[in-house]
């Protein structure tokens, strides 16, 4: 998607008379992933008597919340044609910092410290990528190591337990039956959606991801936009860390180790192009739903761990292949 078409499409959404154009954007070929999620749900409902229950959905929501937060952040970065491999270690470092600070001060201060850690990590990533011109893969891979090392050093390699019970209640509180972490993830989703669709930053992000040089020539400050994407990503990862830390009620120096790859998987399944400039956070939401529901369903059916790994890999490829087929079949818009 080129910078100009990104601008045009966004302008179109603001155009009052152009309802038809907006309807046209809800395209049958975008339905691939939501249909896949629906198919999964139908399958598991039939196979397991406990899948389609309120309690199970509360469970899935709780489990998916942290991945969702991290994936939304990763979406920003991938849209800018980058990648953030350090999100897992950022979660671990934020968890450790939150726990250490919280034990000495108070819950809000601890949470702020954790979130601040995320912002700090994102800033360093952004600077290393834009000022030192290190490619995102390498820069964030290095940060993965640094953040992990810091998390282990500051925690002494063991979990930091003894957090105030008020904090751990975050994971157990429900708002109208919806677990609080899910509400937090939903707010993050709405915020991300608003920024990407309805702000200049969002438009610039798509532009930079689509064609950085063209964006630069059009007057976009590519370095600032890129750096902001990494700050947003790490901040969201820190939000995920707070949620996970509350759930396990301790600071864990190895928390979220699998989240880097999982978040990229969710983003890619969600239709965001790894080359940047194309995709939607709505797709990422469905990507997270797909991965989480698949895992939950397979656990409910007591499928063996090894078979689960196989199924996950095959499902990943199948969903993306089918989704791309549908897109190519109807002819892709640029």
């Amino acid at each position: 998607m080129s910078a100009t078409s990104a601008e045009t499409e966004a302008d179109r959404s603001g155009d009052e008379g152009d309802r038809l154009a907006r309807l046209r954007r809800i395209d049958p070929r975008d339905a691939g992933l939501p249909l896949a999620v629906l198919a999964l749900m139908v399958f598991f409902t039939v196979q397991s008597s406990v899948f389609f229950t309120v309690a199970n959905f509360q469970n899935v929501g709780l489990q998916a919340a942290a991945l969702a937060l991290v994936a939304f952040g990763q979406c920003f970065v991938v849209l800018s044609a980058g990648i953030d491999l350090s999100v897992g270690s950022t979660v671990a470092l934020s968890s450790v910092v939150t726990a250490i600070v919280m034990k000495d001060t108070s819950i809000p201060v601890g949470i702020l410290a954790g979130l601040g850690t995320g912002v700090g990590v994102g800033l360093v990533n952004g600077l290393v990528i834009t000022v030192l011109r290190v490619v995102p893969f390498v820069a964030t891979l290095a940060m993965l190591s640094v953040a992990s090392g810091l998390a282990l050093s500051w925690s002494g390699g063991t979990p930091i337990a003894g957090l105030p019970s008020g904090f751990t209640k975050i994971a157990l509180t429900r708002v109208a039956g919806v677990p609080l972490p899910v509400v937090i993830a939903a707010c993050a989703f709405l915020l991300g959606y608003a920024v990407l669709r309805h702000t200049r930053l969002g438009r610039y992000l798509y532009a930079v991801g689509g064609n950085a040089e063209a964006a630069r020539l059009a007057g976009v400050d590519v370095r600032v936009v890129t750096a902001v994407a990494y700050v947003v990503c790490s901040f969201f990862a820190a939000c995920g860390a707070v949620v996970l830390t509350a759930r396990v009620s301790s600071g864990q120096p190895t928390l979220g180790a699998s989240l880097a790859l999982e978040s990229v998987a969710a983003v890619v399944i969600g239709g965001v192009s790894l080359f940047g400039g194309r995709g939607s956070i709505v797709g990422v939401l469905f990507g997270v739903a797909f991965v989480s529901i698949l895992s939950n369903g397979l656990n409910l059916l007591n499928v063996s761990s090894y078979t689960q790994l196989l199924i996950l890999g095959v499902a990943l490829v199948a969903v993306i292949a089918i989704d791309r087929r549908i897109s190519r079949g109807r002819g892709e818009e640029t």
Partner: protein
Amino acid sequence: MITSMRSRAALLAGLLTSAAALAACGSSDEGTSSGSSSGGGKGKIGVSVPTVQGPFFTAMLYGMKDEAKKLGYTLEIRDAGGYANVDKQASQFENLGVQGVKAVLIDPADPTTLTGSLAQVKAANVPVVGAGDHFPGADVSVSSSHCDVGHAMAKGAQELLPDGGTMAALTGPAGAPWTTDRWKCFTDDIKSTNIKIVSEKASDPAVEQGVTIASDFLQRTPKLDLVYGADDTVGVGAAKAVQEAKRCGKTQVLTAVLGREAEALLEEGCVNYVVAQQTVLVGRLAVREADKLIAGTKPPSDTVSVPLVPVTKDNLATVDISKLREPDSYKP
């Protein structure tokens, strides 16, 4: 042009220096690959472990360091960074063998992959002590066998469910000998009882994975009687899931390794039976065996078996925690 290149170089230099300073400040014995504890003049003892993270290794390394300090040795600790990094451990083990250490203490991630390295180290006349896990071929091994842990956990399961019941299992990392031995000996004993295993899953030894898997298993079998957690990472995670589902005491939790979180949950009644290893003692005994070997004494047998301690809420007060765990004030 030149100015911007120079300033870029200066920025790079500055960043690298700060990174190095940060690494130096943040490094500890375990954090770096060449950690050593200050000590005495009897020489160095090398230590090779799959990972330094987690309650088991923190406790064992504490025992080793404290005992080494008492006896006058310094320790060189090498961390392979994970159970999967068997090749890295092999290299680190071999390197220790040629670095002039008086003996090597090693917890092998997978003993079968290290036989070649073992031969090399022994050829250099360096005594080798297996610590934490049995290492066939080493001069002596100090450990509680994982099979014994499995048997003890089976005994615990039967004590918790004398009339039988349903059980879910979080078996720990797939393919790791410690989990497979533990699980095999556990299931061998359980076969003849009325305890039925309804769900089972392997995972990383991570608390948050324990929470997720256990809550899915509780969904699957709402009136689940027992959860087996291979060690206290997934065990603690399972207990938290039970807590979340408000089933403490109704769905009982059986695990191994008495870490701080496990102990706190035991007191709350959300963990019900812990097979504790005397991990600090294992570390101490390993150093003492190395000391004997360095002095030229041949060990009477190639195994020093360290007894396990079954812990429940009732006998918690009588347990000697100093043999199980490092002191609260200790920071590695």
